[in-house]
């Protein structure tokens, strides 16, 4: 009898508990019924208050400034903390910046690799420590959660094909000079790889010089001036970065060969590169538009933070589009830094 009563009590207790829980759940699902509001609630839960650390090569160039400005504006809007460390073109400082950031445990680490090997070990360690790693424009030998940037091999091919069309087949001396950036960076290595594939396939093209100017316009100027003295009949010079290649363009102008030697560059699209094209100092540049890349990087951050994946589990690749700039009609493929300030 006693057992029966206590069993009954139990049953009543259980039923009322179920009713109450159901009521609560029902109430909760009422709050969820508006999927549009829920979207933002989930988004904020995933990204708000997160920390994103960014280590460029230097903050002293338009490309890094526009990337940083665009990212900053996105992250400010969503309540994401944004840390920037500036190694100022020094590989040792970049390594130090990354190693110290790993200890600080941001949620996402974005790097622009000075060269392909420097950060390889550290990027792996970052992912093992639960940090998402995004690499921008220049890959390291260590793949990571996301790569955002240009397909450098493809850029090399595109530019080389255009050079072959202009200089090959006996139309000119067929002589081409290549001005590399930092020879050990992915930006230079891969463009060179793509370009050499194309040049090697065409017998009328002779690559007379491949020298590294380490992203420095002055050095590009010196190298090109020397090449032009040895090969005044040069048909084209191809620089792996617009700002650096501006130095080469000035050397061509100084040698009185403007218009005769075609100056090509792969460009991130700063205003000065488009102006050089308009002034005829550059023959053509292939812009990948760093301003759009800035948004892509921000998107990659938001994607990873919402993915629920473990760092290092997947690989996301967001490639940039390429745009030829040949004259004033294409000036919108360059960005103005002043717009971000």
């Amino acid at each position: 009898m006693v057992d029966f009563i206590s069993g009954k009590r139990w049953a009543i207790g259980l039923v009322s508990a179920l009713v109450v829980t159901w009521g609560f759940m029902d109430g909760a699902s009422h709050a969820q019924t508006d999927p549009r509001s829920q979207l933002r609630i989930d988004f904020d839960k995933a990204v708000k208050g997160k920390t994103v650390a960014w280590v460029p090569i230097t903050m002293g160039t338009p490309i890094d400034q526009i990337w940083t400005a665009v990212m900053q504006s996105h992250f400010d809007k969503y309540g994401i903390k944004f840390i920037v460390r500036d190694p100022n073109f020094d590989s040792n400082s970049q390594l130090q910046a990354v190693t110290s950031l790993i200890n600080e445990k941001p949620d996402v680490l974005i790097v622009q690799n000075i060269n392909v090997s420097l950060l390889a070990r550290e990027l792996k360690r970052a992912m093992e420590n639960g940090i998402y790693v995004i690499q921008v424009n220049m890959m390291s030998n260590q793949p990571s959660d996301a790569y955002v940037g240009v397909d450098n091999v493809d850029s090399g091919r595109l530019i080389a094909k255009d050079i072959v069309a202009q200089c090959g087949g006996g139309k000119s001396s067929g002589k081409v000079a290549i001005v590399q950036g930092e020879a050990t960076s992915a930006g230079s290595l891969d463009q060179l790889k793509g370009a050499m594939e194309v040049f090697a396939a065409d017998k009328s093209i002779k690559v007379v010089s491949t020298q590294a100017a380490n992203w420095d316009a002055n050095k590009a100027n010196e190298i090109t001036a020397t090449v032009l003295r040895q090969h005044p009949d040069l048909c084209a010079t191809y620089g792996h970065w617009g700002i650096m290649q501006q130095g080469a363009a000035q050397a061509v102008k100084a040698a009185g060969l403007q218009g005769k030697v075609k100056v090509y560059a792969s460009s991130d699209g700063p205003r000065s590169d488009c102006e050089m094209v308009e002034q005829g100092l550059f023959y053509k540049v292939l812009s990948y538009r760093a301003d759009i890349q800035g948004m892509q990087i921000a998107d990659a951050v938001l994607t990873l933070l919402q993915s629920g994946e473990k760092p290092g589990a997947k690989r996301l690749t967001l490639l940039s589009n390429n745009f030829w700039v040949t004259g004033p009609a294409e000036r919108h493929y360059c960005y103005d830094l002043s717009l971000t300030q």
Partner: protein
Amino acid sequence: MTQAEDRSASFLRGALARSPSLRVAGRAFSERERGLLSRYPVFRRRFGDSLDAAVPLLVMCGLFAAFALLVPNYLSGSNLQQLMRDYAEPCLVALALGIVVFAGGIDLSVGAIFALAKFTALYLFRIEMWPLPVAVLGVLSVGAVIGAINGVLIAYLKTRAFLTTLAMLLILRAGLDFVTNAYTIELANAWRDTEGWYWLGAGYFLGVPSNMVILLVVALALHLFLTRLRPGLHIMATGADRKAARHAGINTRRVTLLAYVLSGLIAALAGLFYAARQSSAGSDTGLGWGVTALTAVVLGGVSLSGGGGSVGRVMIGSAILFLLMSGLLRMNMPGGASSALIGATLLGAVGIHIQWSRRRARSRSVRSPVSDQRGAP
């Protein structure tokens, strides 16, 4: 006192007035000369000397404390390990410069030797696939040979140290650019790793990073060498006063050569660890490291006129600079500003150093005659 004794004593007194640390180096001299030394109380350690040594140490501790307060997690185990890892190679390069400065010389090419050693290590180990111990020997001998070339030119052919090592710097950097360009693609894609190589770059011994362990071993060995062993004492004596050292029977040429060879060896050792740590074929390695090393040496209170200073001082100077740079990097200081700060620090340290030594020289010249009288027989 005979006339010869008198002359010898005055030489020594001149040397010692310039460098208090020669007191230790005094051991290298003969018994008779040591007897002379002991009669002059001016050679005894002064309070000013200890203060001189204490200031850099205090600055170092102050900086460390400041960053420990300002930077979150600065005192965490992993951060301390990381700090040691990053500190070891620049400090080794500073020691490489330090030993030449002790001997009264200067070496602007330490950064370039360091960079060339790094390239050699990567080349021998990753491209030529040499066994690690053989590759290590190869790297060290490259450093020693370049040091020896510097040393022979300066000690035996009497070229000026500043210009000789500047020329060496330019030659090495040009050569480095050339070989880096030639092997870029191979180096960028080479991916050989062995346990030994991994230990050099990322290993630990009792929780201390591998390169820091080696730094401590090298520093201790170098300290004992410079303060306890005859060739080391000769280096200090030659730096303090070449003429006096020669009169005391020291082969100053051989000593100078020895200092440059040791310097090349230590710079190459730093390059080896850097290669294993970064595996980076980047062409900017070692750029500006010569200036950083010089700044570290001066910050440690080592006199650039030679004969003074110690391994400990160079390490402290190097630590001050390293803490400053890495701390500023962590506090999001713009890159250009940090470089400017190194320059300003160097200038400030040199200025303070000159003022300090002038003041001390003045106080010494006032006090010396009295002490001499009391000490004279």
